[in-house]
């Protein structure tokens, strides 16, 4: 089935007892059992929920995966991934990932005996050099947040095959509409569904998708054992949102392309990073492994003072964390999303004080450009 067809139909069979076309919100914490040890496969809301199942099947189909396991947040999904390894194991992770991912790994799970190497995974040589005898997993963000660097998924797959590693890709920025890592042989894809997948800035959620039955079994076990499950109502809202994912992503992409071009042509902007620009270092890779460039743009305005001016003057863009919503958001990575990374590390990654991240919404692009234009004057 095509993407839009799956988005609207996958996982969503009419309710068996009533024929309701839209999946009900199965707002129950527990299920009546027929007899001791005899049930219909549903025992308790943390373990099973029909609305959640519908969402899991739906997003799994969009990612061309067999299994989806939904979580209460993107970070809860990432935490479950760390349950695939044990104390003493080593993980190679993309440097300049989302700050929360860095915090979870470096500041929390390191204390539990996991080892992390923060590597520029856009460089295959650097990945190979980072592999150790105890390496078990490679964790990739492509494009990265906020520097929008790309990692070649085919290369990662090759390395993982050679060294018997699990490959994980955070696909939040691209969504399956523009990039399907499983098709490149990646083992696990995850999302903060809070972002583009839900897209309306009203739900916090996460999901893990895989084709590997063993990984599925383990993550499913962790979902129940750790308990960070999403509410049925949040699943229902997200399920409603995936139906418009294709049309939203198209518009995010169109708007972002226009704004990236506008920023590139403005002399007050020191540097514009957008995978759809020809001067992006990974432009040809972007064309190869993505079918669009997404709605995220990062631009350097030189220094904190100039950046602050833009951040404070925009009116249509809202100053706020998060991304992927229908409304345009603007943020300052150094002091907001990536504040948990030490300053020295930050600067090494290129997250300077003058850097601004744009999450381009689906408003009329002329209004968005006028807004930035006005702020730059």
């Amino acid at each position, binding site marked *: 089935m095509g993407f839009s067809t799956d988005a609207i139909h996958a996982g969503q069979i009419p309710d068996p007892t009533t024929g309701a076309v839209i999946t009900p919100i199965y707002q129950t914490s527990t299920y009546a059992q027929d007899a001791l040890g005899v049930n219909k496969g549903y025992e308790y809301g943390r373990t099973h929920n029909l609305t959640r199942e519908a969402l899991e099947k739906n997003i799994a189909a969009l990612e061309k995966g067999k299994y989806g396991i939904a979580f209460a947040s993107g970070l809860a999904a990432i935490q479950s991934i760390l349950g695939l390894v044990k104390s003493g194991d080593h993980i190679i992770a993309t440097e300049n990932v989302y700050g929360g991912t860095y915090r979870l790994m470096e500041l929390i799970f390191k204390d539990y005996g996991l080892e992390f190497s923060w590597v520029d995974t856009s460089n295959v040589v650097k990945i190979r050099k980072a592999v150790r005898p105890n390496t078990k997993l490679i964790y990739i963000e492509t494009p990265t947040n906020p520097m929008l660097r790309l990692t070649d998924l085919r290369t990662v797959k090759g390395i993982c095959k050679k060294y018997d590693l699990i490959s994980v890709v955070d696909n939040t920025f691209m969504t399956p509409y523009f990039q399907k890592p499983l098709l490149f042989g990646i083992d696990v894809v995850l999302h903060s569904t809070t972002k583009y997948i839900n897209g309306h800035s009203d739900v916090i959620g996460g999901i893990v998708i895989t084709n590997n039955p063993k990984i599925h079994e383990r993550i499913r076990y962790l979902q129940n054992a750790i308990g960070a499950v999403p509410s049925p109502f949040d699943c*229902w809202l997200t399920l409603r949102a995936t139906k418009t994912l294709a049309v939203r992503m198209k518009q995010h992409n169109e708007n972002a392309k226009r704004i990236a071009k506008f920023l590139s042509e403005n002399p007050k902007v020191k540097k514009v990073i957008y995978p759809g620009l020809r001067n992006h270092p990974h432009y040809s890779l972007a064309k190869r492994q993505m079918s669009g460039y997404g709605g995220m743009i990062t631009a350097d305005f030189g220094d904190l003072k100039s950046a602050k001016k833009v951040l404070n003057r925009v009116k249509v863009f809202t100053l706020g964390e998060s991304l992927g919503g229908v409304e345009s958001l603007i943020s300052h990575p150094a002091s907001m999303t990536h504040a948990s990374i030490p300053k020295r590390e930050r600067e090494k990654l290129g997250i300077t004080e003058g850097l601004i991240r744009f999450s381009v919404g689906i408003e009329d692009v002329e209004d968005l450009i006028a807004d930035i234009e006005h702020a730059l004057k």
Partner: protein
Amino acid sequence: MSNNVKIKSRKADIDDTKYSMDTHIIYGKDVSDKWDYSHHVTAPISSSTTFRLDSVERGAQGFTQFAHTEEFGEHAPIFIYDRLGEPNKDMLEENLAYVEKGEMAVSFSSGMAAISGVLGILTVAGDEIISHNTLYGCTISLLKNWYPRYNIKWNPIDLTIPENIFNALTEKTRVVYFETPSNPNLDIIDIAAVRKIVDQINKSRGDKNKVYIVIDNTFSTPYCQRPIEFGADFVVHSLTKGIGGFGTDMGGAVIGKKKFRDILHLIRKDFGGVLSAKNAWSILTYGLPSLALRQKQQIKTAMQIAEFLNSNSKVEFVNYPGLPNFRGYETARKQMVDFSGNFAPGALIYFVIKGNTPAESKDNGRKFMDYVADNAYTMTLAVSLGHTRTLVEHPASMTHSVVPPEELANRGIDAGGIRIAIGLENPDDLLLDLDEALKSI
């Protein structure tokens, strides 16, 4: 699960009639010909506007059977479209019918949609409606401002003397409509006495020109009074109030005999005042199951507050059905009884503050309410009732603002009258705030 799997429902074989009402409204009917949620301990929230039909034939069957109980029986297990019916509303309706001792219930989007729904099926142009003088402001507005357009005449009288019906009656009278206790002054109308009179009238009338008794039971909730037991033909509710109980969702319902279900479904379908499934779900899941507990607590508190006001020197008079000196006390004792038969005088109180002139009394009332609005922690100046929070309001300028000042006396409303709808606060805290508010005058 497929359509063909027959699910064994846990409670299918249990005779639920031997259990008490309090218990029943927690369980309700989770299995019927149309749905089976016996497996879900809490029913799913129905969130679909439309329903899959297996075939054109079955679709056609669904449309033909809808609201045609007489030809096809009650068992039409085909959902078509939310406005025609869906599981959450149907489950709520089953429970409402049971708790009001009616044969069936049809839900509506609001209390006013329910009232206009039932009056809509009982009257045609040229007909007349007799009502009590005092009614909720929007019901007055419906009868006074809209029904003349359809040539339906409204005849308000004092129904605390049921014999007055004979004087107001004409060949065209179709409905006797009232609230007991009435909104806002809590007049008590003897339901059984009205029934007796209407029976007498109906003796000489055929089915086509029969008079029906419709009672708005919102103030009492079925916990305090089941008017059908005393002879009401129809009960209407604003589910937004005591039944919903938390102030979160609008809703309405008409409860009565089975033979009216079809036509009520039809008027709901064509006029469109359909209850949202999500609202039905909250009322079904939170409102009804906690009704008995909430009402018990609110009545206990209301009694304390009414006694306090009754003995306060600044208060001219207090209307509360639980006070022995209240004019409706004896009738209230007879018809306002809880599920176990105890006197249940409700959670609403109406009172007037003293003044040397009516204008001064009104002014003092305003001072009291403004004090409450600014200083009281436990009381909120707001319309509505049956909430977890105690709500205070001024009928003459708020719920009954449709009544012009010169008409207030006819409608049984005092210019300075104050209505209190008791919530679930600690009664001592309410007394504290009330005492301070009265001292401020």
